[in-house]
């Protein structure tokens, strides 16, 4: 199968940062906080670049939806081997309420415009943990989906996907074009080498507005309040199993 792969990359707060809730409880503090590419998106980029190196696909296009800084995330994808980038500009209030529904509409529109044969996304983002964008995108395009992929192989016009599910591993074969979402063990993302970082400077990033794609960004969700998790309280020790059962009954747990 030859053709174009779209890879979605999301700019999120770096996984090592200690998250703090804003004093007004409308969200978390993002100003001046280190951001990087969502780790599952890195795995998605790596898989796409690997397919290109095996000459199974022709072009890898990295897409990100967000404000100006999202371009840094696209540059990281370019430094890993993506050929070009598309930055879908979303900022301000639209960005605050941007979620899987809006992003999947954007990706679906881009996939049609770019005549993509494959969309690879991370299985979920580490900030909202939605695990919805891949599935919604496939539904909007009426394409098959291979989610939680831990192994992907292209065979003629089909894709074999090994999925990590609760019961173990599930192997499916789906038609192309398709949407895949990457799970943790799909691959180990490469370091962007310094020569590739410098080469990425010359690669193109196109600017697109959601309106140009005919996408309505209105959110169906409203965030009412954000709180930090409750403080962990001290545990209680009991002497016997009978005490344990009694305590559990007392506190209404059983």
């Amino acid at each position, binding site marked *: 199968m030859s053709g174009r792969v779209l890879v979605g990359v999301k700019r999120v707060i*770096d*996984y*090592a*940062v*200690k*998250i*703090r*809730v804003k004093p007004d409880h409308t969200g978390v503090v993002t100003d*001046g*906080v*280190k951001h*990087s590419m969502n*780790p599952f998106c890195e795995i998605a980029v790596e898989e796409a670049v690997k397919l290109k190196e095996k000459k199974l696909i022709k072009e890898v296009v990295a897409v990100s939806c967000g404000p100006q800084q999202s371009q*840094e995330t696209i*540059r*990281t994808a370019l*430094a890993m081997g993506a050929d070009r980038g598309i930055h879908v500009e979303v900022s301000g209030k639209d960005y605050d309420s941007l979620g899987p529904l809006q992003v999947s509409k954007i990706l679906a529109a881009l996939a049609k415009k770019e005549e993509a044969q494959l969309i690879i996304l991370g299985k979920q983002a*580490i900030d909202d943990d939605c695990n919805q964008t891949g599935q919604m995108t496939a539904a909007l395009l009426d394409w098959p989906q291979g989610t939680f992929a*831990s192994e992907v192989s292209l065979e003629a016009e089909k894709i074999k996907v090994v999925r990590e599910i609760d019961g173990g591993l599930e192997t499916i074969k789906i038609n192309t074009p398709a949407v895949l979402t990457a799970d*943790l*063990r799909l*691959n*180990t*993302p490469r*370091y*962007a*080498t*310094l*020569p*590739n*970082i*410098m080469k*990425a*400077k010359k690669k193109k990033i196109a600017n697109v507005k959601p309106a140009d794609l005919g996408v309505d960004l209105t959110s169906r969700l409203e965030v009412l309040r954000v709180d*930090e*998790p409750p*403080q*962990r309280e001290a545990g209680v020790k009991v002497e016997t199993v009978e005490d344990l059962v009694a305590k559990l009954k007392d506190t209404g747990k059983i």
Partner: protein
Amino acid sequence: MALHGGALRLNLLFNSRSLYKLTSLAGVRPLSEHASAKPATFKPSDTTADHLIYTQEHFALKESLRKLIDQEINPYVDKWEAERTFPAHKIFKILGNAGFLGVSKPVEFGGLGLDFSYSVAVAEELGNIRCGGIPMAIGVQSDMATPALARFGSDQLKKEFLLPSILGDKVACLGVSEVGAGSDVSSIMTKAVRKGDEYVINGGKMWTTNGTQADWMCLLANTSDGPPHKNKSLICLPMNLPGVHIARKIDKMGMWSSDTAEVFFDDVHVPCKNVIGQEGLGFTYQMLQFQEERLWAVANVLTTMDSIIQETIGYTRQRKIFKQPVLYHQTVHFRLAELQTEVELLRSLLYRATAMYIKGNDVTKLASMAKLKAGRLARELSDSCLQFWGGMGYTSDVLVSRFYRDSRLISIGAGADEVMLGIICKYMDTLPKK
């Protein structure tokens, strides 16, 4: 399915995320204070648009190098510190493959031909390694044993020694200091006597970082009788030649993971073509590369100092004495504020000197000032922070005690404080006239 190294980083992700759910907003540190645990706090990054000397590419470089450090180096630091050595060939190959060993070196020989600000970015990022020994070893490979060769060596010499060093295939070391000559470089005794088209080398070198593993040495030796600043040459010396003896691995107070050797030369024959540039100019070449070496050392220790301050804040926030966190006592948070202020001042000096250097200016005075300050600030900082860690700080399990031992070297090596002061006085024209 086995988890390989790459998944380790993502595992840390899940650990820190799930641990976060159990902690309060007040910031109780969920992770142990074990020296090799990943710090849970992160200083906010400067925005790329406003940085004095860094562009987006610099930040991309730092991010990539950081991943490499987190995956290939930091998980093993404790082990290598205990073993008093690290696998130089393996680590340099990984760095070489990613392009980090030849940042400012010529493109024809595997380098990237970028300006010195990129070397500074690499040095800064290497400060995230949880010891001083390995960044020092890398610095020797990338910015101390090779600059003169890159600038003045013949093409044949560069192909034999520079190219493999940049690729990470050959480990380099620098042979300048001797048992009888450290600060006083001009009084070294190692002699290279010309015999036909060979030099015969006798003598020895001391404090040779990477010495037990190196494939070649950038050696400074006396190649003629004459004035001490004009009779020395830099020679590319393969370390496997007969007569080269690694006498011992030196047992040091700190920098444990870096192997430091004492080397002897017993009638070692080396071809004359192995001389870098012109015979007799070795001393001059060596002096020229000191500006870069010093700024490199400053960049490296600044990042580590930031980490030590952050870890000290983390520790003192959860450690209680007299019913409140250690951090709440004014002497503690005020002192940390003083130290952070000095770190930022030194950082500004570093960026100023770097900016001027890449424009072609001579920054010897500023570089010497920065190196002087770096050594002294590291001592003050490690001493104060160690005190705040109390008994825990005195154990071998924490980074602050390792930093205390490692950073003491900065005031001694790569130009002792007193040498820096002498240089500054020279520029201030305050030295006694002869």
